[in-house]
């Protein structure tokens, strides 16, 4: 655009467009292909969200179905499930944040202190591994370990008064979800912190050593401040995703016995939509979730722009 000189700017938009098309016909073919994809799979479904405000009948379609205003939303807000779903979604998220967020940072700081490069490489390769195993297999393993014959169940039952399988006990769902999540992601999530540490000047460590700082002091006063900005950005992004709990894992790990703690908004959306075929209601619940997500993300982004130089937009 910056190349545009005074003369082309005087041309009306469609003249310029026609000239651009004749110069770059291929780009316009690509434009049509790509936009077709986005219209079909993103913008058309976005328009389909209208059914949240309707009593949608598949046979009548969106245009033929009756509008009912906010009835579906009211039904959700006054339902027995509303507080339970919000609580479950938020609690899993908050536990994930409190326990899952600091772990990769501590791991990265300690890994930074491993002197030998070959050790470092091996540790990284091992800790990144769970990231590459499919969610289905991860969940299958969790179910195998926590069912009535699983070694984790046997262990829990031998050290406490607990009886029965962990996977069907609603009190253990959040712990299983969060702990397995940390196991799966702490190595992978440390990548950006490790990258940020390579940017810290070695002079700072040298100066700290001369000033008599021991290892712990160095970690606290050199390494940690060096990655502070990365931490802040990651934290803000995590807060922005607070209501966006990973759907797949919750769906695969939950069972009717644990709905009390395991049923989150997205799994409820799935069940209402695909099991009960209550399309309008399910869409309304999903819109509620999206709006909350968007507000959280916007607030997080605003705070990020205020506190650091960086933001998502």
């Amino acid at each position, binding site marked *: 655009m910056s190349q545009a000189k005074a003369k082309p700017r005087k041309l009306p938009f469609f003249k310029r467009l026609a000239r651009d098309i004749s110069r770059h016909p291929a780009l316009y073919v690509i434009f049509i292909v*790509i936009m077709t994809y986005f219209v079909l799979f993103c913008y058309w479904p976005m328009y389909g969200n209208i059914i949240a405000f309707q009593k949608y009948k598949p046979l009548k379609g969106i245009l033929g179905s009756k509008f009912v205003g906010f009835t579906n939303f009211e039904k959700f807000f006054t339902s027995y499930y509303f507080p339970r779903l919000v609580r479950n979604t938020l609690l899993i998220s908050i536990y994930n944040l409190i326990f899952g967020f600091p772990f990769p940072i501590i791991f990265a700081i300690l890994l930074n202190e491993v002197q030998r490069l070959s050790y470092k490489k*091996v540790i990284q390769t091992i800790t990144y591994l769970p990231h590459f195993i499919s969610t289905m297999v991860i969940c299958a393993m969790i179910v195998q370990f926590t069912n009535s014959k699983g070694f984790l169940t046997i262990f829990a039952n031998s050290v406490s008064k607990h009886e029965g399988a962990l996977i069907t006990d609603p009190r253990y769902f959040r712990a299983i979800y969060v702990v397995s999540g940390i196991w799966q992601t702490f190595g992978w999530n440390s990548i950006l912190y490790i990258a940020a540490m390579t940017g810290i000047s070695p002079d700072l460590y040298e100066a700290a050593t001369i000033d008599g700082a021991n290892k712990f002091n160095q970690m606290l006063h050199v390494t940690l401040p060096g990655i502070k900005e990365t931490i802040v950005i990651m934290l803000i992004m995590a807060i922005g995703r607070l209501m966006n709990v990973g759907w797949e894992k919750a769906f695969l790990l939950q069972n009717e016995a644990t709905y009390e703690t395991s049923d989150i908004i997205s799994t409820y959306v799935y069940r209402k939509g695909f099991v009960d075929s209550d399309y309008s209601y*399910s869409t309304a619940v*999903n819109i509620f979730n*999206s709006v909350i997500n968007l507000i959280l993300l916007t607030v997080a982004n605003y705070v990020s722009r205020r506190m650091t130089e960086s933001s998502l937009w």
Partner: protein
Amino acid sequence: MAKYINPIRATKGEKIFYHVNHIFMLVLCAITLYPMLYVIFASLSDPNEFAMVQGLLLKPAGFSTIGYRFVFRMSTIWLGYRNTLIYVFLGSAISMVLTILAAFMLSRREFMLKKISIGLIVFTMYFGGGMIPTFLVVSQLGLTKSIWGVMLPGALSVYNTIVLRTSFNAIPPALEESARIDGAGDMRILFNVVLPLSGAALATITLFYVVGNWGAWYNALVYLQDRRDLYPLQMFLREMLIEDKTTDAYMNSLSGSSANVHLIKEITKYSVIIVSTLPILLVYPFIQKYFVKGVMLGSIKE
């Protein structure tokens, strides 16, 4: 960094720290690996002996390959493997074509609709259609109950497009200009200038899609409906391991035939996990660095 400190000056306290740190890392690695090791041990165990085990396994309980022999006789596993390979190769190819085209279009400095295209594409990262509206559209397009319903929705990842565009943008404009002076059009520039210079980024994005398609199952769950013959491997894993259903004809034919069939089934579950994870585990050490690169590229903001 620590390596700049003269090791001779390492104090006693520092030495202790290094040892403790190494032990901590060792424990962490052991904890990370143990669940996988347990599955390997269990898959090679003798069904009767494994049933007696209470707690951890440090080696297979007895030894038997019966779990694997069962897995290889299960038609659902073979079918799932075949379908998954189709989705991985064809699906990733479709995704790559779309991603390359989108990234190329967004990297053209002189393209008039560049700004509006970026806006329209990035917008979809924050706003979506939701499960049901997307399902209704895919149904209306007639993509349900076919492989296209599995591969097309979500084929183009905006994140990957942005990563690839960052790499395309890094190519010096002078190279393209000289090609243009030689009479090259946009497609020629794409194939002869841009793509040959983006090998690492293309490899990274391809691997993102391959690993993603390997593990994907949501589209299959929602759009395939009763077409079990098109199920990817992950869907059969779900039936067998998460829902604990026996849907395989071979497994069903054995039920009730001998007393320890249910014990063998238990071993078979672990063998299935290994058989379905092995391909990724084998290539993982070689592809790991590309993934790390992808994470870094994705974190660069423009």
